[in-house]
């Protein structure tokens, strides 16, 4: 490993490659910040352009986009309560209240620092621990994945908001949306109304942008009508230094990085699940859980650290086994293939310098986020809130339309987005939380298809769902997560009575 690393270093620091990483990171932050645009799309657009490039130049840009976009998603999440990427949903929960208080710049700095820490931890895991960690990946079959998805669904409990019944209804709505499309197991169409545009299912980015981005735009418009044009919304407080008070996040970062890496090595789970679980754990471990959702700084740190820690770890099964765990890693594998790098077991031996170079690039681009995200972007973007609502609303709407159209080059998706926008607006007005919907869409399909695959493999024998050690460990974790709040509640009551 050391040999490979040392050989790779001169290549990584050639000026073309450094430039590629810088361009990629800045591009990634912008792509992530625009609702609807994601790293997947950015890298997909980039790939045809990389045909003539040196592999490391192309891969450096991909690494930058991948890491940058994961942080960039936090920017609109904090400022406008619009998650730029699905994984930034949890960032809205505390980031937006902070921005409303005038602490937008501070919230962005916490996101940035946490993204960097998560990304670095993950890249180090990728460089140092890829071979042993990939063995863990193989322990997970459909039964184990089913339990992981259930574990993720349990984090719904922290997303429910003040009225659990409404929260659960929202979660069920998300699960229902997740069933639309051709069911991969049986091949049957569900809720497609004979329309081929629905046969592929609802793309999570389309649902997310509709539900999350449009209601704030409508409200901005209302706001603009109420106030005089030309007036900005929020008061901005000058931010303290980037590294101010960072020690209080150390525990959060360790916890969230580990969660992100663990989720990363499981193909198919993804950054959203990492952020949901990290946020859930943070709230559970906190002494003051009620402050979550009101602008708790640790909440932002957990979510952003968790989703970036998923990034490089997701490349572990991708590079060592050729198993893409997410849309974006699949595209990156495609990019490798174009350069004649066949992902799989022989990759490290035959193209060690390029592969280790790419891993180092994942590490460096994580650090670059501090410069371009923390120092430059946070101050710049925080000023978005100074833009008068009457201008901001149509601009954001335009970006949403372009972003959603580009997901699958489909106008149908744009109409869908508007439909979900109306639903989201109604839910907002009726005080239904939105996060459980996204959780349902992301995890419902994963839970369902893996349960059915597991039962097919077990030939209908339910006992086999709980027969492996890995399943039992995950189930134990689920029970702990579910039981702790109950026990705590009991104890608190007893103390209160005593």
């Amino acid at each position, binding site marked *: 490993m050391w040999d490979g690393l040392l050989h790779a270093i001169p290549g990584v620091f050639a000026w073309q490659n450094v430039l590629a990483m810088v361009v990629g990171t800045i591009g990634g932050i912008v792509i992530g910040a625009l609702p609807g645009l994601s790293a997947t799309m950015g*890298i*997909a*657009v980039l*790939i*045809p352009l990389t*045909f003539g490039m040196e592999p490391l130049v192309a891969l450096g840009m991909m690494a930058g986009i991948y890491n940058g976009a994961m942080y960039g998603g936090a920017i609109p999440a904090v400022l406008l309560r619009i998650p730029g990427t699905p994984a930034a949903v949890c960032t809205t929960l505390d980031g937006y209240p902070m921005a409303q208080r005038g602490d937008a710049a501070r919230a962005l700095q916490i996101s940035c620092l946490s993204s960097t820490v998560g990304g670095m931890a993950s890249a180090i895991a990728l460089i140092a621990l890829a071979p042993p960690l990939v063995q863990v*990946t*193989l*322990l*997970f*079959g*459909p039964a184990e994945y089913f339990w992981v998805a259930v574990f993720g669904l349990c984090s719904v409990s922290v997303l429910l908001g003040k009225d659990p019944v409404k929260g659960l209804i929202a979660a069920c709505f998300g699960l229902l949306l997740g069933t639309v*499309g*051709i069911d*991969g*197991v*049986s*091949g*049957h*169409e569900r809720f497609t*109304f*004979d*329309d*081929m*545009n629905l*046969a*592929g*299912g609802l793309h999570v980015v389309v649902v997310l942008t509709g539900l999350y981005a449009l209601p704030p735009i409508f409200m901005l418009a209302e706001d603009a009508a109420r106030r005089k044009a030309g007036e900005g919304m929020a008061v901005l407080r000058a931010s303290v230094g980037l590294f101010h008070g960072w020690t209080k996040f150390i525990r959060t970062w360790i916890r969230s990085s580990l969660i992100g890496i663990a989720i990363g090595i499981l*193909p*198919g789970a993804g950054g959203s699940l990492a952020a949901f679980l990290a946020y859930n754990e943070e709230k559970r471990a906190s002494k003051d859980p009620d402050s979550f959702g009101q602008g708790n700084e640790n909440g932002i740190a957990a979510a952003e650290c968790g989703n970036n820690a998923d990034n490089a770890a997701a490349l572990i*099964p991708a590079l060592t*086994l*050729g*198993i*893409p765990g997410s849309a974006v890693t*699949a*595209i990156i*594998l*495609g*990019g490798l*293939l*174009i350069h*004649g790098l*066949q*992902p*799989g*077991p*022989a990759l490290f031996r035959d193209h060690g310098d390029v592969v280790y170079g790419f891993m180092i690039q994942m590490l460096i681009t994580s650090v670059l986020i501090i410069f371009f995200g923390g120092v430059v972007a946070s101050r710049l973007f925080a000023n978005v809130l100074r833009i008068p609502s009457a201008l901001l609303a149509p601009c954001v709407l335009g970006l949403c339309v372009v972003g959603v159209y580009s997901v*699958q*080059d*489909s106008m*149908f998706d744009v*109409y869908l987005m508007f439909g979900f926008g109306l639903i989201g607006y109604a839910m907002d007005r009726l005080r239904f939380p939105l996060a459980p919907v996204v959780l349902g869409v992301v995890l419902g399909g994963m839970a369902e*298809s893996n349960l059915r*695959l597991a039962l*097919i*493999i077990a*030939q209908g024998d339910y006992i086999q769902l709980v027969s492996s050690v890995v399943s039992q460990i995950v189930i134990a974790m689920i029970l702990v997560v579910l039981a702790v709040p109950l026990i705590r509640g009991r104890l608190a009551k007893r103390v209160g009575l005593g």
Partner: protein
Amino acid sequence: MMRLHRRSLLSATAMGVLATPAIAPHASAQTWPSRPIELLIGFAAGGGTDILARTLAPFMEKHLGGGARIGVVNRPGPGGEIGFTQLAQARPDGHTIGMLNAPAFITIPHERRTRYTFESFEFVANLVSDPASINVHPSSEFQTIDQLVAWAKANPGRMTIGMQGTGSAMHLATLAFMRKVDIRATLVPFPGTAPNRTALLGRHIMASTFGIGEAAPFVKEGQIRNLGFMAANRWDELPDAKTMREQGIDVVAGSDRGLAVPAGTPTEIIERLSTAVTASLADPEFQVKAREQLLFLAPMPRAEYRTYLTGLNEEIGRLWREDPWRR
């Protein structure tokens, strides 16, 4: 529900209007191509079909000559259906060509109502194939395909075989294999090749069907044992892998990717495209790229490709009527 229904009707009408070939003077084959040619594919950028299209495009430009330009356009949708539909509905003037993935484009119209049929296309030439292969974990007790078949016969329905998606090329290939050797097994439809292969590597299933191209890197490293693949001939990239035929099981199946144009495209243009494909596939530079990407080249000129697909369409139609893979 009512609203959705009306909207889908509306969009259907709108698409119909857009798709009606405009009443325009017939494209002249002499001046073709007069603008860049769109190469439509039904899958997202970065996937296997996309990479093939983007690798091929510059060679097609070179061998078509005359400054021809080809741009790859991705129209991803369920199983490629959106891309196939757009190709079928495009103006047949040679400026829209497309990649057809067989048997996917053939099975979809049998399974559900579509806005294109088999007759909507004129077939240009086949490019690559991916013969189905049956694989086991290296620690498996099955050393040969005969041992696997014998076990499956002794334990009807107990063997778990992973494959990609119900109705997929690999599903149909597995069914063809099972019919040939007369076994019953439990088929596990994973949502893609990657999770299927992962489950095999983790020994969550007993055997697994996927393309030989996707098996090759693992077979070479000894992480997967290949028991045979369903092609007519052996493959240079994996010289030790045996075909099913030479092991006494006469089944040839898998997936194919070739070029097509909308029906009604002038014959001269189709011929020129077909010639350019043949020249591109024979181009040494292209062959280097094909080897790097482990593509199983299967050149088939126009007439042969047409006959092959017509036969495949009849066979799949018969299968669907007799024993639909989706109930």
